[in-house]
């Protein structure tokens, strides 16, 4: 006997229905269903609001959420991880990364490698947040951060320079709790 709601030798599926509208049965049904509805809404009231009060309270994101990019430094030496190889720019499908590399001068090193990124710009108005730059980077110098508040007044404000990408975000985006 298969676990189907119908029998194989029957063409018609029997569905249980309440009383038809109208008449005493209909009135009873309407009354009962009204009470059920009232119970449902009251349960919602008791559960309380689920709204996230956005500007004060941010939506938590998953750890792998792809938000605005971040450039990183080595924690011990403070040197930039980026060596200006332009692999991220090559991988970028939206063509929004611009890298101009320069040679490191001994004595005033900027990065750990031979060269460093003299100009590193990401045009966030073009970026599609695919994360290919992160994958392409051989030194983990660029990663996708968790910030998603990037609205600004002009297009030129959305071109993020190296200094902006290296800086810590003003306030951190909360992460989702385990299992949330």
């Amino acid at each position, binding site marked *: 006997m298969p676990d189907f709601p119908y029998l194989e030798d029957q063409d018609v599926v029997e569905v249980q229905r309440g009383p038809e509208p*109208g008449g005493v049965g209909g*009135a009873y049904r309407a009354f009962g269903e*009204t009470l059920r*509805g*009232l119970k*449902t*809404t*009251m349960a*919602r*009231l008791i*559960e*309380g*609001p*689920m*709204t996230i*009060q956005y500007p004060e309270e941010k939506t938590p994101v998953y750890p792998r959420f792809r938000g605005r990019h971040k450039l990183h430094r080595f924690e011990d030496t403070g040197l930039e991880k980026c060596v200006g190889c332009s692999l991220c720019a090559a991988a970028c499908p939206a063509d929004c990364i611009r890298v101009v590399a320069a040679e490191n001068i001994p004595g005033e090193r900027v990065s750990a490698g031979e060269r460093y990124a003299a100009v590193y710009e990401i045009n966030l108005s073009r970026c599609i947040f695919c994360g290919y730059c992160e994958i392409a980077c051989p030194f983990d110098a660029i990663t996708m951060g968790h910030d998603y508040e990037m609205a600004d007044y002009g297009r030129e404000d959305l071109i993020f320079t190296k200094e902006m990408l290296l800086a810590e975000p003003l306030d951190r985006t909360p992460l989702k709790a385990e299992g949330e």
Partner: protein
Amino acid sequence: MLPLADTQFVEATWIMVVKSLIIFAVIFGIVPVLTVVERKLIGRFQHRYGPNRVGPFGLLQPLADLFKLISKQGFRPDNAIPLLYVLGPLLPILSGVMALAIIPWGDVQDGVGLYGIDVPIGILYFFAVGSLGFYGLLLGGWSSGSKYSLLGAMRGAAQLISYEVSMGLALFGVIIMGGSLSLVDIVHAQGALWFVVPQIVGFLIFMLAGFAETNRTPFDMPEADAELVQGYMTEYGGMRFGSFLMVEYLEIIVVCGVAAAMFLGGWMGPGPSWLDPVWMLAKMSVLVFFFIWVRATLPRLRYDQLMGLGWKVLLPLATLNVLVTAVLVVAT
């Protein structure tokens, strides 16, 4: 017990004036709070907060709304009938305020009756001025020169006729049991047992008809914001629209007040006598909460269902209720 209110009871004119001023001030203080409470409650019923930005807990929201509405241009469509168009929102307010007068907030204490006036015909007065408000709705909808408004007004008229009858009959049982038309005497008659117990059918019919009277869901046919774009209010803007909105809440307060007095024992409650108005207000608040609860729950009825419910279910039920009550009262 007198079948009519005690007409020998007179108060000084200045007491009457002070009383009416107090009632006016209290009710018109409650109405704006009610708007924000309703919005907050509806929000909570839907897992939201509702307005909570203006002032502490969003309590200043009505002030912001009022300021917005008042500062709008007083607009009138070209093909509207000027006098009737202006009269539209005024009449319901008049009727609502007049109906407030008979809601009993307490017994006669120290020679002062804690009610606006104990009119001899009592509850009939409530129906008389209550239906007056629908003239405003009708005139407003008809005179604004818009098809939506006219449709809304027609629906309003049909709805009023259908539900006013059941509403009156629902109260008939209470009048028979109380043996008086005066609301004060009816509250006195509930000393032993609130009329909601023997008259539960009447109470339910009265509340249902009350939803229809105040144009609340599930009977907000005349407004029907989804299909008629607010019905008779379509062409109104600014504070004229605002007064229609205010009237809705005023009518809720009036209907809940009458229901509390007729069925829930009015001002009766434990505690000293100065607590009487508080008890009355508490009972009204419970009923108002029920109004909002129902609004958050039920969808709008289809028009023919509305008419069918009014004429085929409520009217026979109410008539039967009156009949059974009358037989029982005569028999015992």
